[in-house]
Each structure stands twice: as structure tokens, then as C-alpha cells.
């Protein structure tokens, strides 16, 4: 009885020690350094109040990136012309329609080019990584197709080619290597209403704020700490900031348009705090190994000695 109780206490003590180590990590909110928006970082600015939903951007994107025509809706329900219902393994951007009563708005979906992206933290071999202008790029040879990027992206941006023997991850890379030799993001180039424009994120943010200043009632706002409703640029702070940003029409929240409500810290912040505290300098694992090895050698020796003594006793 005693033996077992002691064992229980010891087991709990060992697990408790491991837990205490994990616990050290949890409150350390600021241990993972915040990444700031780089001055040369690029993105898009999409103004939902200007978009007419013509989907020219989707077509231009497919062409610029050498993607096949998506006939899924034509085949499924006889849609009159080809268009994708969502971003997928063969579509990097799509326009969606939000409707509620007599209110409606369009929404453009594509990669947000996060300032501090979760996908690049998740990716085992750095296939998803930031390149020039802060663009999140995908490198085929380093990708194992594990799809942890899809789990970690709060915007569900990376898409996978499910029916390919050699599948790829598909996501907007701001047309950084356009196959048709153009310059910059094809979607912004063709947009007839300049609802989507491209450029340096700092400039885009200034443009967004200027539009808001000129016509504050036109745009969706959120109540600040003082309770006053202030028009909001989605991406300025959301998820630690995104290089691609959004303006929504008054009365329609970003969440209704399909963007998640995020804190101002990057989504991977907590995970990185915990993980980097536990594995800082690999000290904790090495210490655990040394303690374990010491205990095992000692215990096995003790046991062998006891065994020998027992044999001797029985021998006599």
C-alpha cells in the first residue's frame, strides 16, 4: 500500500515538474519578439465599397499564374460561365458576395501577406517563407505536403491540390514571378474601379486612412476603448498586422465579410512563447536527459546489487 502511494506521489511530482517548466512559458507574453512592418513590405488594399464584383481580377490572376480554368460550378449546377466558388488548389483569388436583407457587399479573398505569418512558423522546412518585399512565398522542393500551414493560417489561405500525385500549395504571392511578364499584382492591374490596388503597405495604409478621412460615414467602424466608433482598416493591427488590408462598407463588419476577429498580436505568438521558452538553448531537454540517465544507471546498479545479494542468500 505504502509503496504504491509513494509511487503515485512521485509520478505526480515528476509530471508536476514538467508542468511547472511548461508553466514558466505561459505568462511570458513578450518573450517572442514582435515583428514590425518593414518599410519595403508590399501588399494589396481592397476597398469593398468600390468593388462591383466583375471578377476580372480572378481571371487575370488565373492567367498571370498559369492556372487552369475552373469549370467546377459549370459542371456542378450549370453556371453560365466559369468561375471558382472559393480559392482552391488552382485559384489564388476570388470575389465573394455577402448579402443580408437589402444590404450587400463584395469581398476579395487572397493571401493577407501577414507581417508575422503563422504559416512560416508552422512550416517544417521553411517552404513557406518571406522573400523580398515581405511576400510570403512557397518553395516546392522544401514542402512535404503536411498541410500544417492550413491548420495554422487564421484566414484559411493556403490551398492544397487534393487530387494530384504531385500536389502543390497554392497561395497569392503578389504575382512576384508572373508567367506573362507583367509587373506587380495582376488583380490590381486589371481592376476597372481600382477597388484593389497594390503598392508598399505603408503607402496603402496612408491611402486607406485618407479615404476614411474624406468620407468617414462610408466605412465600417468599430467602437474604441472610449466607446466612440472609429472607421477601421482591417490589417493595420489585426493578427499583428497584415500587408494586405481591407476597407468595409458602413454597417457590414469584416467578420461578416469572412475575415476572422483577431487580436493585435500575431496568431502564433502564444505558441512561440511557450515553445521557445521550453526549448531555449535546448537546456531543458539536455538537463532532463542527464537527470534521466543518472537515475537509470543508479537504479539499475542498485537492482543488480540486490539481485546478487538475493542469489548469494539463496545459494547458502
Amino acid at each position, binding site marked *: 500500500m505504502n509503496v504504491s502511494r509513494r509511487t503515485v506521489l512521485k509520478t505526480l511530482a515528476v509530471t508536476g515538474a514538467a508542468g511547472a517548466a511548461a508553466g514558466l512559458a505561459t505568462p511570458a507574453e513578450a518573450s517572442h519578439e514582435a515583428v514590425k512592418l518593414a518599410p519595403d513590405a508590399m501588399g494589396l488594399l481592397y476597398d469593398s465599397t468600390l468593388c462591383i464584383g466583375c471578377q476580372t481580377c480572378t481571371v487575370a490572376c488565373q492567367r498571370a499564374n498559369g492556372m487552369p480554368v475552373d469549370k467546377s460550378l459549370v459542371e456542378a449546377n450549370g453556371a453560365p460561365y466559369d468561375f471558382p466558388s472559393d480559392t482552391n488548389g488552382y485559384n489564388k483569388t476570388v470575389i465573394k458576395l455577402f448579402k443580408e436583407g437589402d444590404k450587400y457587399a463584395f469581398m476579395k479573398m487572397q493571401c493577407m501577406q501577414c507581417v508575422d505569418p503563422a504559416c512560416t512558423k508552422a512550416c517544417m522546412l521553411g517552404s513557406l517563407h518571406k522573400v523580398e518585399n515581405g511576400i510570403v512565398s512557397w518553395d516546392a522542393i522544401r514542402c512535404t505536403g503536411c498541410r*500544417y500551414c492550413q491548420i495554422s493560417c487564421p484566414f484559411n489561405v493556403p490551398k492544397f491540390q487534393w487530387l494530384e500525385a504531385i500536389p502543390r500549395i497554392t497561395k497569392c504571392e503578389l504575382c512576384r514571378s508572373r508567367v506573362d511578364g507583367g509587373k506587380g499584382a495582376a488583380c490590381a492591374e486589371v481592376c476597372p474601379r481600382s477597388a484593389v490596388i497594390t503598392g508598399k503597405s505603408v503607402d496603402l495604409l496612408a491611402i486607406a486612412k485618407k479615404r476614411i478621412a474624406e468620407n468617414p460615414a462610408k466605412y465600417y467602424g468599430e467602437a474604441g476603448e472610449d466607446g466612440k466608433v472609429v472607421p477601421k482598416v482591417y490589417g493595420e493591427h489585426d493578427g499583428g498586422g497584415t500587408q494586405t488590408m481591407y476597407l468595409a462598407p458602413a454597417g457590414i463588419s469584416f467578420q461578416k465579410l469572412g475575415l476572422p476577429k483577431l487580436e493585435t498580436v500575431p496568431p502564433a505568438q502564444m505558441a512561440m512563447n511557450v515553445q521557445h521558452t521550453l526549448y531555449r538553448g535546448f537546456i531543458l531537454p539536455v538537463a532532463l536527459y542527464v537527470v534521466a540517465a543518472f537515475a537509470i544507471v543508479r537504479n539499475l546498479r542498485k537492482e543488480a546489487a540486490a539481485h546478487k545479494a538475493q542469489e548469494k542468500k539463496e545459494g547458502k
Partner: protein
Amino acid sequence: MSAEARPLGGRILTPFFFLLSLLAAVMAALVLYRVFAGVGSITALTDGYSWGIWKPINVVTFTGIGAGAYAVGLLCYILNEGKYHPLVRPAVLVGALGYTLGGTSVIVDLGRWWGSVFLGFPPWYNLNSILLEVALCVITYMAVLWVEVLPAALERLRADGTPGWKAFATKWLPRVRQMLPFIIALAMLLPTMHQSSLGGLYMMAPTKVHALWFTGWLPFLFLVSCLTMGYGSVVIMDILLGVVFRGKYRSHMKLLGDLAKVSGYVSLFYVVFRFAALGWEGRLGQAFQFSGPVPFFWLEIVLFLVSAFMYLSPGVRANRGRLFIAGFVGILAGAAYRVDTYLTAYDPGPGWHYFPSVGEVLVTVGLASVGLLVFIVVVKTLPILALGSGSDAPSPSRPTH
């Protein structure tokens, strides 16, 4: 140390063997088809639910069951409860199999599986990636577990091999044994790392995992749950062996009883800790809003409590059938917690749905069949099981307490 371990013997090619082989063959055919037609061809996975049942069951639950090697090893080697030695070898074998199957499942699941060779190329390592930590750690631990199985194979070779093999085994057995403490130390460290990181993986999805499951304590809760699953699997395994191979193998009821007590308290600790963490983080209230996956939270708690109270009842510990049920519920509890974190409590947003496909289920069943098949063949041919130390035999080391 485990000198009393002996091969079970008996016929290998039983009807059950052929049934398991058939299930394995179905899996092999599906996997072959998937290689050419893509991951989506045999799964119900989508860009929203990009990990289906293969991750939480084939990897996280199989290795949880395989954690018996870790959980019993912890008692036996670190806490110096040498009496558990007879349970170590079979637990290590189950561990080696569970982890190998989990690893196999990952390869099948990887869209660009050939790219995994670069896991052996450190310059490309992304040290931020929790999944990389899991992958490298699990691969290393798999090797460690098979090295731990090695002495059994060498012992058999020394006893019954050809003269060449006999000489080989006689030469290498002492060397492997000498190395063993340092290998065992790795076998204690690595599961601590990756079993916790298996939970840590979902710390990366704060907007998708339900608040009752999403916490900075995910790694710790996964670590504790692997202990209860590991103990459960050892309890079940030893009882099943005694039933299936009755006459040859006797279950170690006394040892299992002590193990059950340990596991009971660990399960209670898990429940108390989980509530404490929720309270500490101010999320306890969510447990009483019965919507979405919340009922599953209570199901997990009930399973943990049922197994704990069964384990702690002397009547259950004395009864083989009841103890078996307690162990089974214990495994179920840990598995439920893990599957819920990965799937039930995971919501990528509106418009996404997932229900496993027949193909996914058949691959999972096929993998489990391979595990069972190899386990049966190995215990029949190699000295894994302690045949002389069962419940009816006199206790080998310690007096009764």
C-alpha cells in the same frame, strides 16, 4: 532483469492471422491508389479540415497507446519500481509498433511524401516549427524503441540461431545491454518532448480551437493524457494476453492493480488540473454553455473520472474483467481528449464540414491490423513475455503489502 521472458510459441498461421493480413492488404491497395490519385482520392479531407482522423487516431492515439513503454518505463527506471520489469518488454514492443504505424500513417498523409527525406537535412530546419520538433523526435524515438526490442531478438538468436548468428548475438548482446541505460534515458526524454508537442501543435490555431481546449497548457495536458493512455494500454494488453493465451500466459494482476492505482491518481490529477487551468484562464464559464463541442468536454471529463474511480476501487482491481473495462475507459478518455482537440473542437470557419471517408477508416483499420499481427507473431517467436511471473505465481521480488 527480464531473464524470465520467453517466446510464447504456437502456430503462426491462424485464421485470425489471415483476417488481419486481409485488412492490411486492403490498406496497401488503398495506399497504392492514393500514391497516383492524390490524398483527396481516398479521404474526405478539404482545405478547411486538412487533417482528418489519420492525425488524431493513427498518430496521436496510436502513439498514446504506445506510450505504455514511456509510462511504465518512467515507473520502472526513473522511480525505481523494479517490480514492473515484467511489463516493460511487451509495452516497449507495443510502443515500437504504435510509433512505427503512426509514422507510416504520416508518410501516407504527406502530400509530397518524398520531400520528407529533407528532414535529414538540418540547414533547412525551421526551428519555429512545432511539427518539425514532433517529426524529428518521433523518428528518433521510433529508432530508440526498436533498439530496446533488440535484446529480445539477440537472446532468441543466441539460444536458437545458426552457429554464425549465435556467435554474433553472443558478441553483441552484452554491448547492447551496456548501451541500454543511455538508450532508455532517451526513451524517457523523447516522449516527454513530442507527446507534449503533439498538443502544442494546436496552440498555433487560436481562432479555430474551441476555448475549452485552447490553452497554453495543451502540451502539459497532452503529456499527462499520454501517461493515462499508456497505463491503460498496458493493463488491457496484459489482461488480453492472459485471456487469449490462457494456459501459457498469466496476467500480472498484482502489478496491474498497482499500476491501476497510479493511473487512477494521474487521471484525477488531469481532471483537477484541467478545471484549474480553465478557471485560471477565466474560461470555466464556457463549460456551462452547452453548444457546439461543449458536451464532448464533459464526455471527456466523465470518461477520465469513471476510469479513475474504477481504478481506485479495490473490487475492480481484483477482478480481471472489470479492470479490463477500467483500462479500456482510460484509453478512451485520453483518445477522446486528443481527437476532440484535433477535430471535434476544431472549427476552421463556416462552410467547412468533415466526416471520415470509408478509405480513411479502412487505412486506420489496416494499420491497426498490421500492428496486432506483428505483435502476435513477435510474442510467439521472441522472448518478450514474462511467462513465469503471472498472478498465480509467487511474487518474485517484493513481499506482499
